Each structure stands twice: as C-alpha cells, then as structure tokens.
C-alpha cells in the first residue's frame, strides 16, 4: 500500500498522471491516422522484407548453393542470424518475467514492447534454420509424428531436436504471456473506442473482461506462474542453442562455458535492441513521461553488467585455451584474434567490451542520443560475436588440408536485410494497432514514489 512506499524512491512515471491520463496517453497513437513518418518507415521496412522474400524464393528454387557455404564451412551467415535473433528475444523475457519476479516495477513501462520484440525476433530466428534445410517443405520432419516409415522417430539425443523443441515452446509461451498481459488493455480500448470495427475486434480478443477483482486475483496468479515458468525457460533456450555448438568437437565450439556465456550474451544483445527500439518509440510517440531517464539508466546498468560477463567469458575462453595445453584449441583462439578474420574479432571485442564501458558515466547514461548509438554498436558487436564463434571456428579446424574461407553472397546479405525488414514491419504494425505500454500495469505503479493523502487522482 501507498503508506509503505518510501518517499526516498523516485516516481516511476513523471508528470503526476491521473488514471484517465494514462489511458489517454497510451491510446493516443492508436486513435490517430497513421502519420507520414509511420508510412515512410513502414514502406522502407516492407521493401527490406520484400528484398528478403525475393532472396529466399531464389534460394529455395535454386538451392543452398546460392550461399557462400562450402564443404568446410557448413554453417555461417544463416546460423549467425538465427543465434543473433534468438538472443535479441531473450531481453524481452528477461524484462517481462525475471524483472517481474525480482519486483523491479520500472519494467511496467517497457515490458509490453519488449515482449512484442521477443515474439517478432523469434519469428525472424525461426526462418533461418528452416531455409537452411534447403527443402523447407520437409521442415515437419524435425517433429516426431506417427508415420509409415517404421514409424521412424527423431533422435531425441540430438541438440538440434532439443533446439526445435526449445524454440517452439519459447515462441508459444512468449506469445501466451504477451496475450495474457494484453487482455485487460484490450478491454480498456473496447470500452473507450468510438470505432465499431475496433470495438468488435478488441471485444472479441478481450474475452469479455470486465475488471472483476475475482478475475484480477486469478490473473495475477497466472501472471506470476507464467513468469516463474518463463524464467527457467529463457535460460534453457539459449543454453540449448549453445549446445548446438558445444556438443560438437570443433575447436572453439567444444567448450563448457558456452551455456552461461550465450545466455549472458543474449541478454546483453537483447537489452541493446530494447534500448534501440524504446529510444525511438519514446521520441516518436512522446512517451518521455513513461519511459523516463530513470528507465534508460536502469537498462544501461543491465547492459554494463552483461557486457562485463561477456568480456569475462572472452577472457576465460582465451585462458582455458592457453591452460588446456591443447594445441588445436590454442590455435583456434590465436587464429580468432590474429588470423584472416581478425577484423571481425576486433569489431566484436571493441563493440561488446570497450564501448559499453562508456555507460559508467552518468552523463552518457542519461543522454539518449549517446545511449542510442552505443546500443546500435552493441547490436553490431553481438552479431559479429556469433559470426566469430560460428564461422571462424569452422574455417580452421584440425586438418590444414580442409581449411577454407567463407564470404557471404548477395543472397545471404539480402536475407539478413529481409529479416530486419520483417522484424520492423511487425514492430511497426504492433505500434500502430496495439497499446505499446501496459496500461493496467502502469496505473498500478502511478503512486510509486509519491506520498499519498487518501487518494492521488
């Protein structure tokens, strides 16, 4: 209750909002016609997606030979993109589930968008393994289903099968979590909109929600349960992704540090992406009172912490390679830092370890423009981290006779651009038609940090 809230705590939402003002502010972008800026960005995103669709169609029609892969380097751009997008998704779950369990109430301003980002990122990620199959119309073969070939089942000892299960469950649970969070807000829109179509659609999806506190009590219970389930789930997903590599015998992949290293990296890159999106949303939709400098600072602190973890993992990998006395392992790491792809390694090291250190300064943390550019650089750095791990390790394995190099083709680059196009198209549609901030949850934290006299509205 309000009495117990320390007045040393700063308010989470600025501008002394009333409940009504929160509803109005968050629904404002939905009530208006699409702005010119929205159409411009949407068309650019659609064009990028179109380019990706052309590339994927050509690749499916012609075959994987359109990519720069060869006998030695069987995984490169596509799997890099897959791991990159899955990692992006993890920050959304961290914000919505883990910060919920830790009672970090500032999450209410960003959790809705972060969860949406998770869903869209997982969609982008899921495309890559499927198109990598070469014959995506047979993608259902990875699912164990009764068949007339025995029945022949999948190999449940294979990390690739674990991965399929992990990603599908992760997508489903993220979607359910997001939808459950949306129900009360859809009811809010249903009860205030003047548009008949909107009322019909939100009425259908709000499931007859009427604000009954008996339902709210169960809702809160379900939300807590989902948060409790999503927390180990998100850790398991990137752990399993890392096992795709760690259970193999390639030097540079075969490492026990991979699961924690991948999870920390995923949260790190995801927070950078949340930051990128939130800084744009905040500016364009005028949500400065909701996504305050306090929120940006809090996210910056998570970025500093995870950057430290990632940096520690880089150093540990080198130490273990040196200490192991295994010459293949040693060579793999010397090759990373000094070999033909050293430029990729150093982009990664600078962007992920050195640049985030700037956030130790409060002046930089509270400067949205500076934070925005740092976040973009982290995104770049984390993409290169996956490229470094996956591709460089493969180019130089045990036998020098089988060494090869790899360069992406235009088709692969177009597919990467296409995945960004898909991501932004979905995100822009979300921003246009659904409340970007959890209205109900924000109302619950309005009194946070305010001394109340009876009532505050």
């Amino acid at each position, binding site marked *: *209750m*309000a009495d117990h809230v320390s007045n040393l705590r700063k308010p989470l939402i600025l501008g002394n909002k*009333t*409940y*009504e003002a929160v*509803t109005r502010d968050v629904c404002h972008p939905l009530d208006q016609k699409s702005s010119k800026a929205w159409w411009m960005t949407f068309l650019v995103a659609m064009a990028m997606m179109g380019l990706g669709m052309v590339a994927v169609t050509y690749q499916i029609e012609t075959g994987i030979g359109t990519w720069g892969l060869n006998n030695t380097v069987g995984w490169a751009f596509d799997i890099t993109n897959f791991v990159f997008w899955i990692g992006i998704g993890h920050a959304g779950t961290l914000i919505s589930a883990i910060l919920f369990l830790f009672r970090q109430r500032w999450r209410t301003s960003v959790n809705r968008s972060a969860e949406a980002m998770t869903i869209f990122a997982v969609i982008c990620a899921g495309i890559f393994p499927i198109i990598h199959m070469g014959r995506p119309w047979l993608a259902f073969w990875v699912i*164990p289903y009764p068949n007339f070939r*025995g*029945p022949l*089942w999948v*190999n*449940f*000892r294979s990390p690739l*099968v*674990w991965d399929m*299960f*992990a990603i599908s*469950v992760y997508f*489903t*649970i993220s979607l*359910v*979590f997001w939808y*459950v969070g949306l129900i*009360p807000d859809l*009811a*809010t829109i*249903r*009860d*205030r909109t003047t548009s008949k179509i909107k009322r019909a659609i939100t009425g259908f*999806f709000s*499931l*007859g*929600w*009427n*604000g*009954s*506190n*008996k339902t*709210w*009590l*169960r*809702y809160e*219970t379900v939300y807590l*349960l*989902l948060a409790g*389930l*999503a927390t*180990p*789930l998100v850790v*398991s997903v990137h752990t*399993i992704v890392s096992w795709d590599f760690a259970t193999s015998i390639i030097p540079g992949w075969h490492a026990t540090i991979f699961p924690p290293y991948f999870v920390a990296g995923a949260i790190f890159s995801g927070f950078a992406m949340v930051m990128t999106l939130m800084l744009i949303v905040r500016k364009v939709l005028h949500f400065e009172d909701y996504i305050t400098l306090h929120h940006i600072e809090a996210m910056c602190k998570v970025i500093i912490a995870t950057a430290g973890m990632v940096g520690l993992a880089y150093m540990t990998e080198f130490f273990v390679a040196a200490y192991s006395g295994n010459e293949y392992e040693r060579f793999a790491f010397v090759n990373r830092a000094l070999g033909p792809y050293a430029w990729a390694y150093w982009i990664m090291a600078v962007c992920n370890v050195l640049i985030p250190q700037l956030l130790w300064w409060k002046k930089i943390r509270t400067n949205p423009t500076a934070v925005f550019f740092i976040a973009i650089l982290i995104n770049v750095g984390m993409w290169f981290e996956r490229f470094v791990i996956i591709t460089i390790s493969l180019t130089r394995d045990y036998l020098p006779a089988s060494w090869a190099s790899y360069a992406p083709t235009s088709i692969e680059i177009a597919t990467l651009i296409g995945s960004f196009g898909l991501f932004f198209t979905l995100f822009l549609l979300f921003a246009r038609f659904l409340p970007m901030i959890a209205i*109900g*949850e924000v*109302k*619950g934290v309005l*009194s946070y940090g305010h001394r*109340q006299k*009876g*009532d*505050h509205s």
Partner: protein
Amino acid sequence: MTERLLVATFGGERDIVDATRAAKDAGYHIVDVYAPYAIHGLDKAMGLRPSRLPWICFGLGLTGAIAKLWYQIWTSATSWPVNVGGKPLSSVPAFVPVTFEIMVLFAGVGTVLAFFFVSRLRPGKHPKVLYERVTNDKFVLVLLQNDAAFDVSNVRALLERFHVERIEERLTEAGR
C-alpha cells in the same frame, strides 16, 4: 429470481480498498469489486481466498514431464531402437532438455486455459461491464441487498466516509 444490487463508484485506489474492508467488516455481502488494474491488498479486503491455479499448474507440468519422458524412452528404446554412437537406448540424461520444455509448455498453456475456464473468459464473449469507465479510471463496489435489514441510507453513510462518487441500485437476474 432477481437480485437487488447496490453499485457504488469510487475514484481512487485507497478509497476502494478501505470502503471494501469497511463493508466486509460491517457484514455486507460483497458481490464483487471492479477495478482498472490489480490492486494490492484488495483481495484480502474482500476476503477472497488465494487462487488454486498453482495446483493446476503443478499437476499439468508434472503430467507433461512424465508423458514426454515416457514418450522419449518409448520412441528411442522400444518403438524403433536405433544405436546412435553406441549410447544406451534409454539415455535419460539426454532426454532431460526436451522433457523440461514440454513440462513448461503444458504448465504454461494449460494454466492459462484453466484461468479462462474458471473466470468464464472466452473469445467473443459479450462483456458485462457495469460502468464503462471501470476499465479506465473508476472503481466499483457491488453489494448484495440480501435481507430486509439492508438499509440503503446506512450503507450510503458508510461509503460516504470513503468519498463515494455515485451510488445506484440495480436489479439483476440471479447468476449474472
């Protein structure tokens, strides 16, 4: 059978919680409270018991985990045993990741469906909203006028201590 309800509207979180508690203590029958967001402590003020959904969640999670573990052992060791790298056919440690994922899937999706069922939420259901601002900025306390001793003026005096904004009487079909 129709029921007589007393519908009281409030404008703030503190007022609704205090008024609910006072009404409960005075022995009135609280039908429900409607609020735009989940208010901490309101369930206790209403005298609601904690939800039993965690038990459903636990049961479903356990079901999912056992079913999937059995399924993996059955497919790998019984239905079509394949020797993969000389590993034991029933290699349980390798089955842990997928068992975990399916446990989460069953527990998560099942709990949400159970929640929809017990709260009678379904797609396209026509909402019975008492007051359209209850999903925006108003809080509504609904009391049941269940006997002749229910004196509206007494209740009004009680609720006015908590800045009630509007009081109205409504008739409703039983069962709502």
